[in-house]
């Protein structure tokens, strides 16, 4: 897994998400990217029952890139969040813990879309939706050969500039704290979670986890 940057694509007022996705897809194909398939990153949130104090939130996420894996992030207010990487059977454990952790009503958020590959880069354009409502567009770029963020951030941002022009994002807060360490698939999922939280308007911006 190479270094990945997940960023939000701003949707102009007069256009629909679908139109923007089509536009990005056209740009990618013009650049010479080949379509590989579809992808989906989803997140389910569970809230601890009132019996457990203080209140804790658990996010269970899946990424089609790692089909046998389930990521679980425990949000502890006031301290850093933990991420557990487990087999997909973990979902069944959450099922068993229904008494203690109830799924939130506004259930599943997911980012679904197409997956393109251009030589060493992997581009994923995902439409974020909560049930039938579309919330926005998440754009993911991965540079496969490199695993150290510091080494390839400039290359990644230059590549994104060719796509996004003026909207090129700066180094995400999450990655800023991990410049030297090796990039893992967990980091991608944490970035997605950050964006999902922003879309849902949650008040707790997660501080980057300390390593």
């Amino acid at each position, binding site marked *: *897994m190479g270094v990945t940057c997940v960023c939000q694509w701003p949707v102009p007022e007069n256009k629909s998400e679908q139109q923007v996705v089509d536009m990005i897809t056209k740009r990618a194909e013009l650049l010479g990217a080949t379509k590989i398939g579809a992808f989906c990153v989803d997140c389910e949130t569970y809230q601890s029952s009132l019996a457990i104090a203080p209140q804790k939130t658990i996010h269970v996420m899946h990424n*089609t*890139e*790692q*089909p*046998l*894996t*389930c990521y679980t992030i425990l949000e502890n207010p006031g301290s850093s969040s933990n991420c557990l*990487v*487990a*087999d*997909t*059977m973990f979902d069944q454990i959450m099922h068993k813990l229904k008494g203690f952790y109830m799924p939130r009503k506004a259930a599943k958020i997911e980012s679904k879309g197409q997956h393109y590959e251009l030589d060493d880069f992997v581009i994923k354009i995902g439409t974020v939706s909560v049930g039938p409502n579309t919330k926005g567009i998440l754009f993911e770029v991965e540079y496969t050969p490199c695993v150290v963020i510091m080494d390839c951030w400039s290359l990644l941002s230059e590549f994104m500039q060719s796509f996004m022009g003026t909207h090129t994002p700066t180094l995400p807060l999450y990655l800023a704290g991990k410049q030297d360490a090796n990039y*893992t*698939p*967990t980091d991608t999922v944490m970035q997605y979670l950050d964006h999902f939280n922003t879309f849902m308007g949650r008040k707790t911006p997660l501080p980057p986890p300390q390593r």
Partner: protein
Amino acid sequence: MVLDPVSQEQPPSKPAVLLLAKRKSLSGAANILIAGAGRLFRSQTQHSLLTSKRQDFHSELLRLHQNWRLKKVGKAIIGDLSFKSAGSRFWHNGAFEVTKTADSEQQPGDGYKSPLEITVPSDLEGRSYIHVCIKSDSENAPQNGSFSGVGNKLPDDLHWQQKLEIAQNVLFCKELFAQLAREAVQLKAPIPHLVIGNQIISQVFPGIQLCVTLCHENTIDKKHTDTGNGVPQTSAVLEHSLHQLLRALHQNNLNPSTPHPVTAPIGVSKKRRLAGAQATGKKELAEFNQSECLLEKILKQVRHMVLQNRVCKLIDNLTCSMPDPCILAHWSVSNQNLQSSVKLQIMSNSYEQIGRTPLQLVIGVDQVKGVCKDGRVVTLSYEEHEIKNFLLTQIAQHQVNGIQAIAKVMGWQVLQSSSHLGVGPMEKIGHAAGIMLISPSGDRILAVRNGPDSHTKVSVQFPRNQQSITESKSDVIIDGKWDNLWGYFKEVNVDKMKGRNLLNKIELLMAALTH
């Protein structure tokens, strides 16, 4: 009146009469006993004749049941000689029938006739084996189906154990061939594998093919006897490998890896178990699922065998054709089925201490890796000329290194030396090596060039004032100091020189030039 017993006179004793009487009574009793014994004996023999067959049948059946799986279906006894209980998933049920031999009068000349009769299925009759051979395109392809000729029809009085084992072997060979044929059809190779009748032909290297044939000899095939002249020998090693591979397949079917924890589903390999927790991507998962099939495994083994033979023959040919540097090959005793190694020592006779070039060749499936004296690793393909190229270059280098070592001993200094000369005529194969030495007194220069094609060229350079006087002195050059410059190189006829080998000749030359 008194009654007195009167002793009467004893009658005269007649012993003969007594004896006669006793004898008569004894003989009467004996006759009765003999008659009775005779009757008993007769009845016993008759009884044993009657019941012997039945008793033997049951004891034979018991012995059969101890070795083979039998079950009673209605009135018949059916046995199972398939490999299903060993993990095979072949469609053939391998059922044989056990019957009592018909009662017939035993002639005195007959051999032992078993009370049991085994009937094997008609398609498992006869003998069978898998014929595996490697052939190159230059040899003639043997005709299809012309492999029988060894062995006649199975003798009738074969013991039931041997009959069943032979039939089981036929079934095993059938399964093996069916598995290979299925894989040959499904695999996508650059040159597709051919399946014709009972033969599978696969390309191993360009020009070399592997031919696997199912040879089934029964009474029908007796017509196609072949003298065996055109048929190459089957490779017993490969046949054994094929058998082992199929057995390994059976065992894997039966014994999946134990689940961790014990309540987890069976059959999940350790890699798959850890894949989730290690966040394995899609590409890596696809690689996990790919496993090599039987045909691929045996092809790898064949490739390695062919490559090993090639290298062996090449080294042998080189050793025979080049007496000068002596090449010793030490093949590693413990080789694996896909890798073997050979350590070569290139040395000159009587100069072993001074200059020896060690070399190691590791022979894999498709490649040969050469490890040189200085630690460089060269990867060569399966092409013969590449390996020859490498070896000849090493030999040329050895000669020059040997000369360098002698120079050290003799006190000559090395002006320059090169392992891969870029000057002079290009060699058709390999690289030439060269060296230039100067004598201790500084008035002779020796230049040696050694190449696989151009062999050895030795030249000596003298200073101008020591050259032949026949060269005319120029009028322009008056000053005597110009005579101390180097003159031309003169070539030495190495073939006419005395000396055991090149190093010896150079040593003698150096000794002659030093003064």
